[in-house]
């Protein structure tokens, strides 16, 4: 409930200040500047501890214009429109790969970075799946996609994606409203890779989603957390970090990574080709790797952190929470999303529209 009222407040505030904010966030052209210039940062919604921004501004004398987006595809559209020159973008693995493939990223010079060693080797390795030289992307947070369920509404053990097709839970199933994520469930049920570009496999997955449509309560992204806390739905596809927050709000909730496997993702900070203040961007990324920033972020967002410096200071209980830190065994069948090329992208989008208009 608290989040809901916050949301309403935020809506009011953004409506009132909307125009003013639009004027102010005009990137390099925008109003006030710190002594060392300004940077424009583009991040997922509600994906940083906001206090860090003013901390960074005070510490480095750089003004931060901060902007948010919902889905990586929205970010891509806004970035490529070129209206705003972003200096730092925080986005997901496959989108990093897409931007790389289009020469839209600048290499990040990590040699001068003070805190870069806090990032564990394991995560650099992780990023090599799409950034082979580790030259463009600095790990920010990571997590998985799984099922959140309400134990007071679901009696059986949840360990398979197939429960999302169970008619007992009609009108009580929340699906991801993001195309690649939504396709994870049917593709893994079929035993196919979540990075498949095979049209027959994708069409079969699409048929499964169409079949599921009448059972779906809603297609949501960020709202799933609230819907699950308030008991609106019994089951939902969710990101692990949102699941942790939801479980904290309602102890009846539990999170699982289905045995068929899922997606393990890593979000990274990158510097796009449009950057006008590369030095400031590097400093911001370095700052995100610092102990204080990583700790504040972890406590605010509850996603897995690649920052190993803070691990020692986390409670045993948190470290043992497999929602945040899944075991290697749980990750066995999980894959990282790859960029599939524009042709496959278009196919995914078409199939997704078929699902959404199947009523």
């Amino acid at each position, binding site marked *: 409930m608290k989040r809901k009222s916050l949301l309403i407040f935020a809506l009011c505030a953004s409506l009132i200040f909307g125009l003013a904010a639009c004027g102010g966030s005009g990137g390099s052209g925008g109003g006030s500047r710190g002594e060392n210039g300004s940077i424009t940062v583009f991040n997922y919604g509600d994906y940083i501890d906001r206090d860090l921004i003013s901390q960074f501004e005070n510490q480095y004398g750089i003004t931060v214009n901060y902007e948010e987006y919902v889905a990586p595809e929205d970010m891509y559209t806004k970035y490529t429109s070129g209206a705003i020159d972003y200096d730092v973008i925080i986005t997901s693995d496959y989108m990093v790969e897409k931007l790389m493939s289009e020469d839209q990223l600048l290499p990040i010079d990590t040699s001068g970075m003070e805190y870069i060693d806090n990032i564990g080797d394991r995560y650099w390795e992780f990023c090599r799946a799409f950034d082979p030289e580790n030259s463009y992307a600095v790990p920010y947070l990571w997590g998985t996609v799984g099922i959140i369920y309400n134990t007071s509404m679901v009696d059986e053990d949840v360990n398979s994606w197939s429960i999302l097709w169970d008619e007992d839970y009609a*009108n009580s199933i929340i699906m991801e409203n993001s195309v690649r994520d939504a396709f994870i469930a049917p593709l893994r049920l079929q035993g196919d890779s979540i990075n498949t570009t095979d049209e027959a496999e994708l069409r079969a997955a699409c048929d499964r989603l169409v079949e599921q449509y009448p059972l779906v*309560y809603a297609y949501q992204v960020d709202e799933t957390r609230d819907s699950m806390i308030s008991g609106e739905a019994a089951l939902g596809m969710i990101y692990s970090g949102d699941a942790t927050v939801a479980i904290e709000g309602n102890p009846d909730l539990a999170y699982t990574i289905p045995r068929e496997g899922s997606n393990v993702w890593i979000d990274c900070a990158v510097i796009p080709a449009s950057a006008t203040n590369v030095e400031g961007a590097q400093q911001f990324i370095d700052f995100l790797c610092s102990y204080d920033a990583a700790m504040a972020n972890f406590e605010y967002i509850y996603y897995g952190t690649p920052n190993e410096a803070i691990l020692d200071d986390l409670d045993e209980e948190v470290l043992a929470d497999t929602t945040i830190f899944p075991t290697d065994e749980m990750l066995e069948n999980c894959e990282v999303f790859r960029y599939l090329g524009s042709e496959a992208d278009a196919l995914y989008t078409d199939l997704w529209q078929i699902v959404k208009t199947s009523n």
Partner: protein
Amino acid sequence: MSNLFARREQSRSVERHNSPRHPWLAGPYIFWAAGFIVLPLVLVFYYGLSGPDGTFTLANLAAIAQPIFRNALGQSLLISFGTTAICLVLAYPLAYILSKNRSRSGAFIIILIVLPMWINFLLRILAVQMLIANNGIINMILGHLGLAQMRLINTRAAIFLGTAYDYFPFMVLPIYNAMCKIDHDIIEAAHDLGANALTTFRRIIVPLSLPGVISGIIMVFIPSISEFAIADILGGSRILLFGNVIEQEFNMSNDWHTGSGLSLILMVFIIISMIVMHRVDKDGEGQIIW
């Protein structure tokens, strides 16, 4: 009647007196209109009528033939016609009763209708969402009464409820205004000449309130045909309206050409409905709002 004409003459002479004196006062608005109305329209036409390589094409308009887009347009038309019908059926009798009752309680009811318009419409829709959610207030009351829970949220009916609720004042107020303007002498004359209540209503009230009905229809139909936010919030993204599809073309597919082409199709519908209204509304009273 002569009374009405006199009033209109008067308002015309006021216009004549005011308009040409300081044309430069319109400067700021012209600047605004050029930047935020004309330029975006030019861009929509440019993108809508060109392919990714910049050459002229009608392919973006032809995209409407694809089942997905056709389906979404059908959904939008259904929602906008339905919403308009619901609003009209609810608003007309209410406006009639209120126009006859000019007492304090009548004014109070008008305030009750106008009041919600002071609150941002998204907030009102979020409130509706709370009411009709699976474990929302309506289902809670049903539960307490021992009745079965209803599936209200994320259905087409929920979208109808949201749009009708949101646009209702836009239907009531023009009809109410038109009815208030009806000269009471005309009604009395009709009675004197032997018309009964039904005939008076049919031959006098309905025709004279028509301009208000038409502005009401325009003000409800046109915004609801391009509706997409309500469908997202109350429809759980399960029902894609034409507005949602256009939004997806821009944001998800990053295909500005198809998105603009579909917007042009939508514009055609809006222009058609305005022409139809214009034909019907010979007096031009409905256009005051536009």
